[in-house]
């Protein structure tokens, strides 16, 4: 299943937030979205997952999601969004219960996703007992449990310290190498963007327009070996971002 964003524009109470976003998200690719604060990245992600409707344009699914996918468009949130009153396995089973998956079938899935996110020992822990990185791994496990066709991630690592971030990023890369998931990944961190993205979409300041789409052809698993090329890409992205950020700063000063 591919996703196609068809000329999306949006305004909140008369303020234009997004303008004419036209973009393809092909199956099996990670598309990173970067842009200055307030340019509408989170809003765009909410449109893609169907949590909100744009004023103009639409998000199209091209082709059917895989038969076994319980929740084709699945979010991983910046603040984890775990239910504090449920244990780790309870949080995963939450998203299975409504599909009528209970008992042994649910246990098997929970066991599998917790193993894949290295959480097997913490199945009965409450969120308050976990570190930030573990909480985000629980959220990833929960997302994997519904076999998504496309993962929608809004700054999933930004609430974490930089060491944990490195480790989780490696996890995401490994996972992609194994499963080739499709993803839209919103971030402020250019390094994350060049390490994870097949495409990096740079949005302009508000109202967000597509300023440039940077393709990175190196396979994800080989990126560590091409540090030089990556830092060139990152420098290029930084140039683009800096212009936007500076312009945005000037505009705010005039208000």
């Amino acid at each position: 299943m591919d996703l196609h964003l068809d000329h999306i524009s949006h305004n909140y109470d008369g303020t234009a937030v997004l303008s004419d976003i036209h973009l393809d998200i092909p199956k099996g690719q990670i598309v990173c979205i970067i842009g200055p604060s307030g340019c509408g990245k989170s809003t765009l992600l909410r449109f893609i997952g169907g949590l909100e409707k744009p004023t103009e344009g639409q998000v199209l699914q091209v082709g059917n999601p895989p038969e076994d996918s319980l929740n084709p468009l699945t979010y991983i949130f910046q603040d984890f969004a775990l239910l504090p009153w449920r244990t780790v396995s309870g949080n995963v089973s939450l998203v299975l219960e409504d599909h009528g998956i209970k008992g042994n079938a649910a246990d098997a899935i929970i066991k599998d996703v917790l193993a894949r996110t290295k959480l097997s020992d913490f199945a009965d822990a409450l969120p308050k007992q976990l570190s930030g990185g573990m909480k985000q791994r629980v959220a990833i496990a929960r997302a994997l449990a519904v076999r998504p066709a496309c993962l929608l991630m809004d700054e999933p690592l930004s609430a974490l310290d930089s060491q944990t971030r490195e480790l989780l990023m490696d996890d995401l890369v490994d996972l992609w190498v194994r499963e080739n998931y499709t993803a839209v990944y919103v971030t402020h961190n250019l390094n994350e963007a060049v390490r994870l993205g097949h495409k990096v979409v740079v949005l302009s300041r508000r109202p967000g327009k597509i300023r440039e789409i940077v393709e990175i052809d190196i396979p994800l698993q080989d990126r560590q070996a091409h540090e030089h090329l990556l830092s060139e890409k990152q420098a290029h992205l930084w140039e683009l971002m800096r212009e936007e950020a500076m312009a945005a700063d000037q505009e705010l000063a005039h208000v």
Partner: protein
Amino acid sequence: MSDNSLTRSETTATQPVPYRGGGFSPKRARWVAPVVFVILITIWEGGARLGWISPIILPAPSEALNALIDLYNSGDLIRHLSASLQRLVGGWFFGTLLGVAFGVAAGLFTLARAGIVPLVAAIFPIPKIALLPLFIIWFGIGEESKIATILFGTFFPTVIAVYGGVDNVDRGLIRMGQSFNLSWWSIVRKIILPGALPAMLSGFRISASIAIILLVAAEMIGAEYGIGAYILLAGNLMAMDQLVAGVTILSLMGLTVSWIIGRLEKILLRWRV
């Protein structure tokens, strides 16, 4: 470098950084309450024995205890207590049940909120005791009017606590539920209700105290049995020892309720940070 700092410390005054943290976090100290209690009772008893406190003004604690034992031996204690507890539990239970239902409705539905919230704001501040005569005309002098008073008195604070609790449930969690395609009913049951539980429990604490106050007031107006009736009779007979005994029973009731809710909070809200 260490040399340097040594010479510095000889010439300039060196001292630890002044400590400014701490405080603002009372700890549990289980022994304090019993000690305060024992000291107060001792002073009171001693004062009465030494004749500083006239028994007409305030009976000694031992006399009040004797009155309590007499009450127990005569079998009236059970009768008073069971009459009171039935009214209290009945009124509080149904008031809370209705309050939770209306509060959740006001928290979830636009129409319900627009209808319920102004009504609650208008009726909550009326002292329900003022309505008791009305209830007596409607429901008669028997149990119904007393239970209705307690029900009414607990209903409103419960509605307010519950819809406030529903309002304060993390919107991010609800959005998460929607993003995983949970049904409306699942979101209410598994996300909104547990999320509102802390506010509900503290609402129960308040409504239970209100229920005890209204219980006594209702029993003072007309009841054969009940702690309120017992206290009223003692007051009319100037039997101060019985009066103090009755008030002690009320206080113990309040303590018990607060203890039960405390246990519930411990068990049900274990997940709280």
